[in-house]
Structures are given as C-alpha cells and as structure tokens.
C-alpha cells in the first residue's frame, strides 16, 4: 500500500489545463490542415491529384482538397514540383457540414458551430456517447480512447462513452462502414433514444478513407445516418477530436470569439 501511495506522489498530477491554457505542443513534423498556394501551380499540372491515394484533390477550380478524404499522407506535396502544397500545424479539423471539408486556396475551414436550442440545452453539459467501430484500422478508436486517459480527462467536460446505446445521447462512429457492420450500426442507432446526434471521426467514417469505393464498404456513414459533426484526419490527433467535441458542446466559443 505504501508503494502505491509513493507511486501516486511520484507520478504527479498530469491532466492538461487546456482549454483554459494553450493545448499541449504538437510534434514539429505533425501534419495538420493543408495550405495551398495555387499561384505556384504550373499550367496543366495534375501531379498532386495523380498522386493522391483517395482522389481527395479536385483541380477543376484550382487545387481543392477534400479533407474528408484526405489521409494527411502528403503524397500530393511530395509529388508537387513547385511546393504549392504544405501540411501545417493547424490541428482543428472539425466541421458541421460535409461540404465544409472541401477547401481551396486561402479558404479557412469553417470550424464547427455549437449545437443550438434544445440540443444544446440537453447535451451542452452532459453528452453520453456510444462508440461504434465499423470497418477501419482501429487507429481512430485508439485515439478516441486516449481522451479518457488522465492527461486528457474527457469526463471533466461532461462527455463520456457509455456501454449501451440506450444510455447514450448519440453515436461516435469510426470506420468505412463495412457491409458486415451496416445492420449492427443501424440497430445501434435505432436503440439510441431521440433526440440524438452522430459524430463521424476519421477519413473512413466520413468518406471511406483508404477503402473508398471498395465493394466491401459503404464509403462511410454519409447517406446511412444523419451526421452532426465531422472530424477529419487519418486518424485525427486526440487534440483534433477533443477540439471537435468541445466545439459541438459550446465549450470553445469564448476562445473562438477571443481569437
């Protein structure tokens, strides 16, 4: 017992102060929201789009990147002869509408607004989520789980993962929605009492990710369930996921107004 107490003292208090203090530093090589400098694009060049594993780049109106498909692999930036693409350190990648994830040059991401009205009143201070993993690589699940560790301590915001959909206010879905998980996902959704929300985390859940257009998947939850929050990344960093959740429940509004 004395060893346990000694260890407790030694390991110390580890919960971060974010969002009341700046977030923990991200590694120098972190790949966040891409920036595009279309003025550098040679005429007729399609090297970035050709290199993209998921077809996330549309060249019809200058390069536009669909962050819902993006794996943040930087194959496009490596292929670009002119350095027109660059993945920066901005970890904030959560939006409320699918279309907002498509960005071009000089376009800011319209970060997620908070829930409004009754949903805000119901979920703003207490949001219970049922997680459904539906055909991915388990990396998104792992970094969602990290939010429950002492460093992040998600429960201090009133957000918790619960064991039953009956106890949940909504679903947090990961994975490309394999055909083999369609029924289970639908049943889980149906079992959540209304009103309910759906959060799609990661490229798979948003678009199918690396498995886009495989006959074995349904290209994510779009079209199967109404999605209230999209958190992009492959997988999104825990900070990206936390940022999205906090925006949804209105915990980052003040910070946004101040910045």
């Amino acid at each position, binding site marked *: 017992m004395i*060893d*346990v107490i000694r*260890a407790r003292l*030694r*390991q110390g208090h*580890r919960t971060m102060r974010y969002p009341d203090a700046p977030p923990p530093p991200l*590694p*120098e*090589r*972190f*790949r966040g929201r891409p920036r595009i400098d279309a003025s550098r694009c040679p005429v007729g060049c399609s090297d970035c789009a*050709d*290199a*993209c*594993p*998921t077809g996330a780049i549309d060249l019809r109106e200058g390069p536009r990147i669909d962050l819902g498909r993006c*794996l*943040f*692999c*930087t*194959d496009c930036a490596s292929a670009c002869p002119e350095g027109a693409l660059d993945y920066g350190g901005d970890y904030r990648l959560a939006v409320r509408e699918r279309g907002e994830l498509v960005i071009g040059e000089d376009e800011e991401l319209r970060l997620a607004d908070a829930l409004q009205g009754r949903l805000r009143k119901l979920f703003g201070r207490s949001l219970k989520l*049922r*997680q*459904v*993993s*539906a*055909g*991915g*690589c*388990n*990396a*998104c*699940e*792992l970094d969602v*789980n*990290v939010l*429950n*560790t*002492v*460093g992040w301590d998600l429960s201090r915001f009133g957000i918790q*993962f619960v*064991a*039953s*959909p009956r106890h949940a206010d909504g679903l947090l879905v990961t994975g490309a929605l*394999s*055909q*083999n*998980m369609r029924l*289970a996902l639908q049943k*889980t959704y149906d079992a959540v009492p209304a009103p309910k929300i759906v959060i799609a985390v990661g490229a798979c859940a948003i678009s199918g*990710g*690396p*498995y886009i257009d*495989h*006959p*074995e*998947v349904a290209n994510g939850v779009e079209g199967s369930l109404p999605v209230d929050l999209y958190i992009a990344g*492959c*997988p999104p*960093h825990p900070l990206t996921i936390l940022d999205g959740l906090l925006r949804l429940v209105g915990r980052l509004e003040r910070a946004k107004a101040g910045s």
Partner: protein
Amino acid sequence: MSANGSAEFATIGNGRAIARAKVPLVPPAELLRGVSAAVAAGARVAAFFGMLDPDPDDVGLVVVLADDRNARLHLGRTRVSGRAFDSLTPACPQVHLFEREIAEQYGLRPEGHPWLKPVRFQRAYRRGYEIFSGQGGEGPAIGVTDFYRVEGDEVHEVAVGPVHAGVIEPGHFRFQCHGENVFHLEISLGYQHRGVEQALRGGPDRRSLHYAETLAGDTTVGHTSAYCQVVEALARCQKTPRAQALRGIALELERLANHVGDLGALANDVAFLPTAAYCGRLRGDFLNMTASLCGSRFGRGMIRPGGVGFDVDAALVRDLLARLDAAERDTVNAVELLWSSSSVMARFEETGVLARDVAESLGLVGLAARACGLPRDVRHDHPSGIFRFAHIPVSTWNGGDVFARAYVRWLEVQRSIDFVREQLRSLPPGEARSRVEALAPDHVAVALAEGWRGELCHVALTDAAGRFERYKVVDPSFHNWMGLAYALRGQQISDFPLCNKSFNLSYCGHDL
C-alpha cells in the same frame, strides 16, 4: 531436418524473393504430405492460401513453412482441380483457419475439416463455387452460421457483440456456460472486413502503401515494414544501415507503446487504477516519440520502400533519448506496482491458462506463444534488417496464464527500451532511403516481421508485368484468436475481459 532439400519445397531466407518457376509444382497429396512431415519435424505454417488460376476450375495453393531453428522459409505450391481437397487440419491443427479461408475465398472444400465455417463472411473470389450460404447472391449474412452448442437443462448461452461495451473493434463472441463456468467460447469475426487483400491485387499503386499502413492501425510500423521488405526483395533494393536502424527504432517504439498500454489496460480490468492511470499516460509518451520521428503517433509515413520517410538529426536524437529515460523511470515505477500487489497477482495468476502443447499445435505466435514457454520470435529466428546485427533476447515465461502474458510484455518493454537507446546512440551515417526500381516479374517474395503481437507474414506473387497477382497478409491475430478461445475453457465468464485483454488481438488485422 524438416523440409530442407526435400522435393516439395523451394527454400529461401526471410525478406527474399525467388522466381515462381523455381517453386516446384507438385500434386496436392504430395504437398500436403510434405507439410505434415515438415510440421511434425518442427516447422510452422506461416501462410497457406489460394490463388486464382487461369482455368476457373482450378485453384492454386501456396504454402510458406517457417523453419525457426535454421532460419529458413520453405515455399510449396500445388494446383487443385474442382471443388475439394483433403483437409490437413485433423493431422495438423494449425492450418485450421487457413483451410477455412481457402474454402470461403475459393470455394474449395477441405474434406474432413472438423470446423468448417466462414472466416469473414465475405464474397468468394472464385465465383460459381461458393460453399457457404449467401456467398453467391446478395452476399453472406454476417454472423449467421452453425454455432457450436452445448445442450443441457442447466446450460445457457451468452452472445456478445458485434458492438461491445467499450471503445473497441467489432466481433461476435458466443459462450456456452454452466452457471459462471465457460465450457466453450466461439469467436466469429469478419465485421471489419474491408477487402484489402483483393485491393492489393494489381499493385503496387498509389494506395498500396496506405493499405499496408492501415491493415492494423496499432501495427502500422510492423505491417508496413513487412510490406516494404516484400517490395524491396522483389525490386532487389538494398537498404542503408541507417535506414535499417531507424526502422528498428520505430518498430520497437510501436511495441513499447502497445505493451505499456496493455499493462495499464490489464490493471484496469482487475480494477487496479494506479497502474491503469499511469500506463495510459505513458503509452502516449511512447506514441509521441514516434510522432516526433514522423509526425504521426501511429508511425504513418515513417516506413517507406527503400528505407524510411523521415531521418533524424542530432538534436532529435538527444530529445528522444531524454524522453526515453524519463518514460522508462515512470514505467518501471508504474508497472512494478503490479507484481507487488497481491490483489493484482491473485487475479492474474492461473487465469486463462493456455497449455504449451495446445499453443504449439494451434500454431500460436508472438507474445502469446512466448508466454506459454514457446521461444518464437522473428527478430531472433528469422532476423532481417537491424536485427541481424543487434540481437534482442527472446523473452519467455512458462505459465501460459494472464500473468505470463503480462510479464512477457514487461520483459519485452525493458529490452525494447535498451534496444532503442542503443540504436539512437549509435546510428550509422548515410542516407535514410534508397531508390526502388520496378518489381521482378513472375517472382514470389516472403517477409516476416515481429510486430508487437507476433509474427506478421506478407507474401507477394508478381505476374509477368511485375504487378501483384496475389498479395497475402497474415496478421498474428489470425493464428492466435483460437488460442483465446481455448484459454477461456473452464474459466469464469467474468474473467473474459481480462483474458481477452491479455491477448489483445486485432479484429481488423484478422478481417482485412
């Protein structure tokens, strides 16, 4: 010894390629006899799979045997006409799931298989020969199969999943129970099936590497290393010593993050919250070291054909060494609490015991095998890359219980820390990445790597144009799920979460 020099097989080393024509094509009965004899002499079946033949009535079968004592791999192949072949499973149980997979994918029935059921509930690759219901038309209905049942007035069945209580992957578990006691557990998977092996056909292309990185997200470095080894073998690419060392560092950091995380999760499952809390954080410290290497906590972008995607400089090495020291101190402090807490040991010891002979006959790999006293470790038995020069001792324990699986992790954590430290201090100079040319046509290459769960086996066969005609992935979980089912026999059902976590197998790596 085993198959060495025998007529049924061609022999290569780990991470090597050979012309397909040099692998003898023998009649099915002869190949299966050869496999039986080799396994009886101590070889393991690392892979056994089908491939389409130009004649739709035929299916090719390819086998890779691992001869651990001699660091050799034996390749064999045959062609089966029609709809069936004689099952090897009764004589050689470790092929049981491989044969079920061949049945599901190619409609080739292993006659005499004692447990013939779908593996992933997927559509067949060879159409018109489907064996399981629904495979032909609308697609199979997942989880609808002939589950094993124990009959009796006082017997009850507990069905769990695919959606579980935690933030984990989907799978279905059926327990046949008498009160709290489990007679039998059947594990039925396939919910994570996303068609990766099929999609790798015709590659390498712009997605192939990303498939390798997402075969199992927690084993990104391991699987991508095996994939790259296959590509490099087919392209005759030599990696620099620096690239090999950096790959080794990334692989061991991946092991560290997962093992430390699992030790915390095991503590959590017996409600010992101090270690659970500390290890949950410390896992992140190791993941963040990987992120310092390549920007991704899971090692995305680090392992690339020809070497690594990111080099390190002296400042990063210093930083990583300092963080490694700090994480080591806190990890020792957190984990040693487990072994000195009687409440923890009472739950760990003699729970979920898997006998060594069962583990051996099921063909278990990795830490689950080592915890049964089987000294199997690709880094030692089939060393490639940096592991040819820097030897990591094989960590084993004899109990086969939850404690053994926890303690082997702890032994490996200490050895991996030593390895990473030594490699960071003595990084060879040179380039971090070499050029990779086109792949050799009509060749077959095999790569084994020791991921944190165990042996990752990748096999690629190229066609006349040097494209993947068949790409086979064997995740350690494919071998080990049956080990978990056996470990549950005679246990309390309430100990399932603890037993399950002690194996911590991959659903996506199994389902592909």
